[in-house]
């Protein structure tokens, strides 16, 4: 038996209209699901952006031995650059280091008390490809054996603690995303099951005239996808509106440009993604809810 796709589309569309209050409830539930998933997606993207930014700040400082001159410092910095995992390196002269210290409120008096003497050594600030503790530790081991290196400092204790928290935050985001997705599918399936219960008479008539399982299922699944897409669109519109409102309040009350701090917002790609994800959610919910409801009784 051939599957008349045009009929399925038409049937899904009209059935969505005929569903009345039940269709509305399904769309509202899917809107809430899209709102939760959309908020999560924005939270995740912006948080990962900040995690990456925070991780990029970790660097190792290689102090050179007292009395090293500029030529020796440049030569040593070339050898450091050649080490594996090194992303970039900035050579800091004693004068630059002193200038930086004088900008620090706590240390400016100490610098002033030196009366022009500069005991600070040449140093190199090194960023690695991967800013995790094992990479920094490995770099320390490789750098401190080089001739001319006095010591390597990467704030082992504090960096390890911060990196541990960032890792935990990534795992929490993953768990939250998974939980939200599972809840959204379960809630959607429950609502679709209610709409199917209301249409059990219609399904029994379809079976009576010899409609096969997929002939009954496909329009219902398409209807679920349609409800999901509409829910996604509404969810994205609500997120966009809420985002604009919060950004305006933040600028007005706190003079804070949220757009600059949180680069990921509701753009066209996000909108398309949320509509597609919600349509998929509606489809999955319908598939789950349909389960054995169109099978033959014994």
């Amino acid at each position, binding site marked *: *038996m*051939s*599957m*008349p796709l045009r*009929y399925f589309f038409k049937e899904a569309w009209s059935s969505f209209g*005929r569903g009345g209050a039940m269709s509305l409830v399904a769309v509202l539930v899917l809107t809430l699901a899209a709102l939760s998933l959309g908020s999560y997606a924005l939270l995740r993207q912006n948080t990962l952006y900040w995690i990456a930014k925070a991780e990029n700040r970790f660097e190792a400082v290689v102090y050179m031995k007292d009395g090293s001159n500029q030529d020796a410092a440049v030569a040593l910095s070339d050898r450091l650059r050649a080490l594996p995992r090194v992303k970039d390196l900035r050579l800091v002269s004693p004068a630059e280091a002193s200038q930086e210290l004088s900008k620090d409120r706590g240390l400016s008096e100490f610098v002033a008390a030196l009366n022009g003497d500069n005991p600070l050594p040449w140093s190199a600030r090194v960023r690695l490809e991967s800013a995790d503790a094992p990479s920094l530790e490995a770099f320390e081991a490789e750098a401190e054996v080089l001739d001319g290196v006095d010591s390597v400092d990467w704030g082992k204790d504090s960096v390890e603690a911060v990196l541990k928290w960032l890792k935990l935050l990534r795992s929490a985001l993953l768990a939250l995303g998974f939980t939200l997705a599972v809840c959204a599918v379960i809630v959607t399936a429950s609502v679709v099951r209610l709409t199917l219960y209301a249409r059990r*008479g*219609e399904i*029994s*008539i*379809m*079976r*009576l*005239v*010899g*409609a*096969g*399982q997929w*002939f009954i299922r496909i329009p219902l699944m398409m209807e679920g996808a349609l409800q999901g897409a509409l829910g996604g669109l509404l969810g994205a519109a609500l997120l966009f509106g809420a985002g604009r409102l919060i950004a305006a309040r933040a600028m007005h009350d706190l003079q804070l440009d949220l757009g600059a701090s949180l680069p990921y917002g509701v753009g066209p790609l996000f909108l398309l993604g949320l509509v597609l994800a919600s349509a998929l959610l509606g489809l999955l919910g319908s598939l789950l809810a349909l389960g054995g409801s169109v*099978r*033959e*009784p*014994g």
Partner: protein
Amino acid sequence: MIEFQDVSKTYEGDVLALKGVTLSIARGEFVFLTGPSGAGKSSLLDLLTRERKPSSGYVRVDGIDLGSLHDSQVPALRRRMGIILQDFRLLYDRSVFDNVSFALRVLGLPEAEIRRDTEAALEKVGLAGKADLRPHKLSGGEQQRVAVARALARDPEWVLADEPTGNLDAETSMDIFRLLQVANQRGATVVVATHNQSVIQSMGKRVVRMRAGLVESDAPEEKK
């Protein structure tokens, strides 16, 4: 050929609806099933439409054992049947035309053929002018005629009707039975469960009388 061989059907709670029924109906026959409520008429039809499976014994339609028929093969069996029930079973949120055309649509026919056959079926039952109406705008008799049109639109091999005139007046009932008779004359095997004794007597067909899940008598009725 329809065959019931020592068929019993027990429902939940050990309710015995059929007790070892043996019966055969030849291709092209018109048979009435009659008897008091709870006699087992509807259970017999439910087994024929494979709405239910027998608890023991065999139900065969053209050699197909319905008890061991896989669920996935049931729709194909039903597409060869025209089923009419007392409560019409219409889709009330669709037009009369859509109700009838749905039975043809599941056959996967081309759109033009669906339209042609639906119009022909509605013409046959005298509802050609009401194709665009919703069923709730029609009288009970007209609604049952929609159900008959749906059942007959695809020229079924078997027409199975369970109390098709249970809610209808005498004149409308005769109209419905005349339509079933026409289907029978065109070659369909017709099995009708009914309480309507006046129709049974006026048609002079084979009558299977049932009581308490058993076949009490099986003989042609003399036309009066």
